């Protein structure tokens, strides 16, 4: 399995990263090398192995639905790049 420049462009678009033309070759090469390395996982027979998503087996962790003190609107927006009317402001999405 090798990675092409087209693959990198596709993955970059999924990841919302813009890879300029002059960096495409480098990323294709380094990602290709790593993907080739992880191919070794295909050597193992894992047909009857259960996947581990978490080292410590924990189920759903629930808590009582009680309101606790948290950041105020003002405190939360103090870190905002841009804020308006108590909300985070973003560029216009729908014309």
């Amino acid at each position, binding site marked *: 399995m090798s*990675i092409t420049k087209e693959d990198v462009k596709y993955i970059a678009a999924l*990841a919302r990263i813009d890879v300029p033309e002059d960096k495409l070759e480098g990323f294709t090469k380094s990602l290709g090398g790593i993907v080739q390395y992880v191919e*070794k996982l295909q050597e193992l027979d894992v047909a009857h192995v259960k996947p581990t998503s978490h080292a410590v087996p924990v189920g759903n962790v629930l808590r009582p639905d009680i309101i606790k003190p948290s950041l105020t609107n003002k405190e939360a927006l103090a*870190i905002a790049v841009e804020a308006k009317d108590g909300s985070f402001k973003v*560029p216009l999405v729908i014309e």
Partner: protein
Amino acid sequence: MSPHQLTSHALLDLFKSRQITPAEAYADVVNRIKTIDPKVKAYVHMAQGEPDFNGAIPVPIAIKDNLCTKGEEITCASRILKGFRSPYDAGVIEKVKKSGGAILGIVNMDEFAFGSSCETSCYGPTFNPWDLKCVPGGSSGGSAAAVAADEAMWALGSDTGGSIRQPASFCGIVGLKPTYGRVSRYGLIAFASSLDQIGPLTKDVRDCALLMNIISGYDDRDSTSVNEPVPDYTKALVNDVRGLKIGIPKEAFVDGLDPEVRRAVEDALNLLKKLGAVIKEVSLPHTPYAVATYYIVATAEASSNLARFDGVRYGLRVQPKSVRKNALVDMYEETRSQGFGDEAKRRIMLGTYALSSGYYDAYYLRGQKVRTLIKNDLDEVFKDCDVIMTPTSPTVAFKVGEKLSDPLSMYLSDIYTIPANLAGIPAISVPCGFAKSGLPIGLQLMGKAFDEEMLLRVSYTYEQNTEWHLKKPNL
């Protein structure tokens, strides 16, 4: 001896006998930072304001740049978080402050903890106090270098695949990755949520136990935090390994292991044997697959975790001049492209690839299944061993720039440390000698889940019978 040269427990003794005040000790360490840090570059910035020293353990501490600390700029050494001043304290920071901990400043790391050398930081590299031409290891390279250079009494770091233990080894200090769930991750900026764990970097094993006492414990704000009782870890500091079983995986002593590192670890093994430990050769047959498994699982989780850095709420926002797709998508892409460094982009893309439609089963799902095999290997060995011993890293610290252009060779430097993260078990690195070049060597001990005490006991015994931890770099 100046206060900054002491261990934290020695400094606490001086506080108790009123030979020095916490404020004087703090000023002494700050002065040390001013003198030495222009060479080492461990700190990214000093803390805002003076601490109040109000608590039982008012020891000066350095904090890794991914632990939210109220009022401080916390950036994960990434341009994308420039200007993010944390509005709250992480769980561990609350605990440190409650204990009286005096925060000195925020220390350097690889960008988003993506690296083993501290070179991918947007602030530039940190240098190894033992040889300024070498890396301090990573990703908690700033934490390790600060402690090794006496620029902090101790430090907090985080470990996803070896990020506490490998820099501790490279810098000749003690570093512990606790059991997954032992320490709250609330307020730790996530890299790979199923692997990340916060832990101490200290000058000796007693300090490690003391700092574990401060930071351990359940926190309902981290749903993966485990509600197990926290022992007094200093009680585990027993100078006795008689009858304890130490497993030595035969897979650990293979090609690629530096002969000097091998010899130092074998010497340590012989010493522990002389002190009464029982040495057992064991096998972890799936460890050769650990690095590949890790780079699937960790990057997949990272690509998802780092999706939140999009310029919408905090940190960097860049709006391109011309419209490409639409104003919002253009902003996401421009912000992320300018905000992330190349290694961060590479890992996000690798994780995105492993999770993408058509590749999920072949990569991510398979990686999780091999993770099970690696965990089973360890479970099997621990049925008849108290600890497993390996080198922490196959080599001593490498030169700055040496591995930066070859990501895969950088990834392979985590070969011994990754299995503990995949299995969620605790592991510690302790100094076990020096190479001819003068660079420190570390040995790793892995233990059963929630048995940090056994790791501390064996490392304490080793330390009490050696003098490696007393050596200081010549700066």
